[in-house]
Each structure stands twice: as structure tokens, then as C-alpha cells.
């Protein structure tokens, strides 16, 4: 009789190459994702030491962070970004790493293309020099962001040094109401535990509400694990997972598929396994969430009022709230509904997938973006863009007056010229509302694609549940 194990333990145990007494484990990496921003110094390190890439066939690269989202036929105007891209191209060519770069039909945000290509599979260890690598946990993979020194280590050895993480059960019971989405679950979690609540832990999302989610919705949740302080977050694989993976370009096929599924079915946490921490969220009680402050933990149900510093008993929290409200230029106790909006951004590795665009398009169909509001829609990958154009979503966005862009990280990280002006307010489907994140002086409200689209139409922060036909609208995203 073996000890009951969590899914994290099972993946961990299988991937420990060796562990010296007192040292961290040498952990094998199944898939290493590379992008232009966090890899150049790692490749330089390899060259300095005369090293090669150990497993180029388990490594894959794309360009996403600093690339423009203007038409691909236009030249890159930012010389520094262009140099970074050409360095990525040279590094991939020199070291034999496949690159889904600009102009490739499989280009896209690194956390969108991994799943799309079928490279992301259950039970894997997946790393990338990007904190939103937690996204891939949606498939029951142990996936986490690493720094550039670690990128170099993984390139050279296909391993890295890790201490066993603690586990944190996030149980989401019940059922979401129409208009309430995966984004609202994760924003509600982070609002409850704070941006450091998951530090040192891996979240395992469980429960009825999680099981009911599509893969893309699960990715939205796992994506923002890092905003709750957890380096990784995952969901045990099930039939929903297998259906999504099946038939994708890099998915196992034939007898190998059956063998893989049989293996994947062993992954879920055993009955009786214990977690280091645990929290329960009631999906029935959730409303659409929105942030009002300058970190993702500063979130409230959309019908609530902005908190007052005077209600904060902890002096540090009070100062932080005062500072955030001053940056956001919001009044304590004001409703967030009706707050004016200048820009709406739909996209990112959090909410830039086809189902996100379907939801936003459903809310915008036969409507117009409010006067004075700029709506930017940035598909998460070139494939998402093509699909959205095929389904007529792009036409809906354009007819509504939105700016339909090429794929990339775009205004989520605002490195590529897509950015807010100082003082502007944005409702954004991205993952971070840090000061200046979407452009110096810009002010971000994080929310779901439905909330973002509804707010674009009304020109102010709007509860998507007030949209006519919300029941059928919400169903567009899949249940």
C-alpha cells in the first residue's frame, strides 16, 4: 500500500533525476518554451562556456513580447526590439531550436501556442522564462516560470534545481451563474488570499466548478496562479483535457495515444492525499470581479464599492490602499460600476484565446464601441486570428469600431508600443494591473472578456449581466 499522493507529488517523483543530501533535486524538464525577451543572455552564457543545447527537440521558441501587432507587412520601427528578434532568430538557428517566429502561421503568445500545437500534455514538467508558464498547468502539467539563469541551465542540461514545493488545494464548489467566468474565479481567489498568499506553493484547483470548465477556461485560471504568489497551479487531467489534446499536431497518435491516456488517468491526486494548505470558494456566490487597485489582489465584485483606507486596520495595508487609490485617482467608497473607461483591451495569455474572442464578439454583435473609447482586440496567436476571421468574429469587432490586431503580448506588457497614455483608464482582460504595466501612468481594471466588452459598449465599467440575453451570451464561451 503506497502513501496517497497529490498530482504534484506524482509528477515530481517521476522527474527527479538525482538529489544529493542537503541539495535541491535535479528535476528533468519535458518541454522548454523560449521567447525573445528572457533568452538572449542565456544563449550568450552558453556561447561563453562553449555549451550546446542538450535537447533542442524538447525546446521550442516564438516571438511574442516585443513584437508589433500592426500588420506584419510593416517593418519593425523599434530598432532595439528588432535587434532582439533577430538575435532570437540567430540563436534558434545556431542551436537547432524550432522557432515559430514572426510570419509563421504558428506564431503566437508562448502560452497560447504550446497547448495549440499539442506540445503541452498532462504529466509533463514545463518551464519558460515567463511567470505565466503556470498556464500549462491546466493540462495537469507541472509548469512554472523561471529566470534567465535557469533558462541557460535548462538549455544546457534539460534540468534545473528545485526544492519540492508545498501544495495548496483550491476547491471551487458549485456552479457559475451566467455572466460569471473563469476569470472571475481566479480574481476572487487572489482577492481573498492576496498576491503573496500562494508563495512557496503550487495550487491544485479542484471541485465541481473547475471540472465544468473548458480547457481554455482552465488555462485562464492556471495562468493567474502566479498573481496569487504561486509559481504553478494545475488541474488534474480528465476527459475534457484528453478531448482538447487529441488530434493536435504534436499529440500522441494511434496506439501511443491510448498508452498516453492510460498513463494520464493515473495522474489525479489520490483519495486521502493531504495538502499543506486549503481554501474553498463557492462558485454559486461569485459575481463578475474587477480590480480597482495596483495589484491583482485588489479586486472586488463588480457591484461593490471601492474600499476605504479608513477601514483598514493594518497600517501597511492602509498605506498601500491609499497609494493605490491615489495612483488610480479613485475615491474611497465610490461604486466601480459607471467609472469612465478610455481603452478596453481584449487579449493576452490570460484571455486571448478563441473562446475569449467569441465571448467578446457575442457581446459586441450589432453594437458599437462607445464614443471616446478605444477597443483593441489582440488574438493570442496567428491561428486564433485566422479562426476568428473565419468565424466572422473579426468582422463583428471591426463593425463595432474595434481595432483588430495581429497576435502578440501587446498591451498586456506594453513593450511594443501598444500602451495607455498617462492617466487613461483601461478595462483589460490581461493579468496585471501594476503601476505603469500597460503604459506609464496608465490605470488598469482587470476583468473578464464579457465585462471588458460590455464596458467597451457602455464607455464605463459595466456589469455584463445587464447585457440583454446574457444567458445565451455566456453560453458562447462553452460550459
Amino acid at each position: 500500500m503506497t502513501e496517497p499522493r497529490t498530482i504534484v507529488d506524482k509528477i515530481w517523483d517521476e522527474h527527479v533525476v538525482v538529489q544529493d543530501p542537503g541539495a535541491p533535486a535535479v528535476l528533468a524538464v519535458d518541454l522548454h518554451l523560449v521567447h525573445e525577451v528572457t533568452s538572449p543572455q542565456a544563449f550568450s552564457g552558453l556561447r561563453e562556456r562553449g555549451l550546446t543545447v542538450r535537447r533542442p527537440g524538447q525546446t521550442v521558441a516564438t516571438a511574442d513580447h516585443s513584437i508589433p501587432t500592426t500588420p506584419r507587412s510593416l517593418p519593425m520601427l523599434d530598432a532595439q526590439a528588432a535587434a532582439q528578434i533577430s538575435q532570437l532568430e540567430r540563436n534558434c538557428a545556431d542551436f537547432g531550436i524550432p522557432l515559430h517566429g514572426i510570419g509563421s502561421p504558428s506564431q503566437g503568445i508562448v502560452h497560447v501556442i504550446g497547448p495549440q500545437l499539442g506540445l503541452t500534455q498532462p504529466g509533463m514538467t514545463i518551464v519558460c522564462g515567463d511567470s505565466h508558464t503556470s498556464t500549462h498547468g491546466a493540462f495537469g502539467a507541472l509548469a512554472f516560470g523561471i529566470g534567465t539563469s535557469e533558462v541557460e541551465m535548462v538549455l544546457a542540461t534539460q534540468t534545473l534545481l528545485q526544492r519540492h514545493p508545498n501544495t495548496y488545494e483550491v476547491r471551487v464548489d458549485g456552479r457559475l451563474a451566467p455572466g460569471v467566468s473563469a476569470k472571475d474565479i481566479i480574481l476572487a481567489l487572489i482577492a481573498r488570499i492576496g498576491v503573496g498568499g500562494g508563495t512557496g506553493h503550487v495550487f491544485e484547483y479542484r471541485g465541481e466548478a473547475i471540472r465544468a470548465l473548458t480547457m481554455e477556461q482552465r488555462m485562464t485560471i492556471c495562468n493567474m496562479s502566479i498573481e496569487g504568489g504561486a509559481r504553478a497551479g494545475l488541474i488534474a487531467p480528465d476527459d475534457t483535457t484528453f478531448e482538447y489534446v487529441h488530434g493536435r499536431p504534436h499529440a500522441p497518435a494511434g496506439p501511443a495515444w491510448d498508452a498516453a491516456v492510460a498513463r494520464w488517468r493515473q495522474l489525479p491526486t489520490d483519495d486521502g492525499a493531504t495538502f499543506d494548505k486549503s481554501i474553498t470558494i463557492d462558485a454559486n456566490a461569485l459575481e463578475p470581479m474587477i480590480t480597482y487597485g495596483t495589484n491583482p489582489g485588489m479586486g472586488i465584485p463588480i457591484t461593490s464599492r471601492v474600499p476605504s483606507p479608513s477601514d483598514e486596520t493594518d497600517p501597511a495595508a492602509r498605506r498601500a490602499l491609499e497609494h493605490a487609490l491615489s495612483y488610480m485617482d479613485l475615491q474611497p467608497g465610490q461604486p466601480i460600476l459607471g467609472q469612465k473607461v478610455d481603452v478596453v483591451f481584449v487579449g493576452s495569455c490570460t484571455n486571448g484565446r478563441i473562446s475569449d474572442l467569441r465571448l467578446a464578439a457575442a457581446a459586441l454583435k450589432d453594437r458599437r464601441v462607445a464614443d471616446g473609447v478605444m477597443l483593441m482586440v489582440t488574438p493570442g496567436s496567428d491561428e486564433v486570428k485566422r479562426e476568428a476571421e473565419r468565424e466572422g468574429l473579426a468582422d463583428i469587432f471591426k463593425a463595432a469600431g474595434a481595432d483588430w490586431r495581429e497576435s502578440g503580448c501587446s498591451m498586456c506588457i506594453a513593450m511594443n508600443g501598444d500602451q495607455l497614455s498617462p492617466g487613461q483608464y483601461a478595462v483589460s482582460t490581461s493579468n496585471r494591473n501594476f503601476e505603469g504595466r500597460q503604459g506609464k501612468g496608465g490605470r488598469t481594471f482587470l476583468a473578464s472578456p464579457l465585462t471588458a466588452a460590455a464596458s467597451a459598449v457602455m464607455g464605463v465599467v459595466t456589469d455584463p449581466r445587464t447585457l440583454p440575453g446574457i444567458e445565451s451570451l455566456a453560453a458562447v464561451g462553452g460550459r
Partner: protein
Amino acid sequence: MAQPIGVFTSKVIPIDKENVDTDQIVPARYLKVTNKDGLADALFRDWRFEEDGSLKDPPFILDQPGMAGRSILLVGDNFGAGSSREHAPWALTSWGVRAILSTGFADIFRSNSLKNGLLPIVVPAEVHAKLRDIIERDPDADLTVDLSEQGVLLPDGSTVDFDIDPFAKRMLLAGTDELGYLLSKGADIDAWEAAHPPRIETRASA
């Protein structure tokens, strides 16, 4: 490769904020570099500089008189949250920071710091409050960090002990890095790979 950390003494720069994210430490527009140099100017860029490059008035703590040359930060909880950018510790060390005292660090930032000779020191809340008190009363108080003894010597002669991963400590004291250690495990990695065929082949035409 990082310089070994020995015993060092410095006055302290207090940054009394919690949840300082790496977008504040180095804004994303400075991530287009392809080397590690020159990031000192990007450090806390938007807290320090106006749009035209002039210093804020009043200046941010880093740019106040007497702060240049200090190598210890005292910061609020969950320092280094958010993005995994290693540019954050690169910018801090290139400005001259060698140790950061806090009640807690974000996981990736802490890991990145240890790989760059930057020592994240976690202290309990009451010790953090005591340190803030000391700095408030004497902004020029000296602290001495002794990694091998895992202690911070306070001006009153008392010592605050801190925990650190023993493996990370060994690396920091020797100024060696983890890659060298991993490369020494080549035979183990070979054996693991022989028993675990790759799940994917990214170079296969899809």
C-alpha cells in the same frame, strides 16, 4: 558568474512598501536589452525619474543624499512579485545592492537573486519592525551581513539570525553557480533520459 559574498557592512536604504512588483523594479520597456549591462539606470525607473529623464522632486529614496554606495535594502513583504524577469536582480546588483531584508520574497525573484550574488534575507515581522525602528532613529545606522554565520549584526551589538537554503549558501559563499553543479550530473541525466524517452519532438513537422 557572481562574486562570492563575504562579510560586508553598509548603511540601509528603506523602501517602506509591500508587494513591490518587478515591473516597478525594472519597467518592461527596459527588457529589450540583449545583455545584462546598464540596467542600473532602469532600476525603479518610474519612481525615480520624470518623463524627460530628470529626477523626481523630491527624489525617490535611492537618489536622496547619502544613499549612493549603500548595499542593503530594507523592504516590505512579498518583494519582487509578478514577472520572472531576471533583469530585476541584474538592475539591483548593478546599482550596488548586495542584500535585501524583508518578511518575504516572491518565489521567482528570490530564486533569481540567489543566482546573481544578491542575498534575500527573510526576517520575522517583529525583527523587521525593529530594523525599521533602528533606521528611523538613525538613518545612517550600519548593518553587517555575515552569510557564513547567517547573521545580521545590529548597531547595538546584537545579532539577528536568518535562515537560508544550505545549498544556496554554499553557492553564494563560493561564488559558483548552479549550472556547473548540473553539468557535473551528466551521467545521472543520461540515465534518466535513457529510462524516460522524450514525450515530444518539437522539430517534427506538424
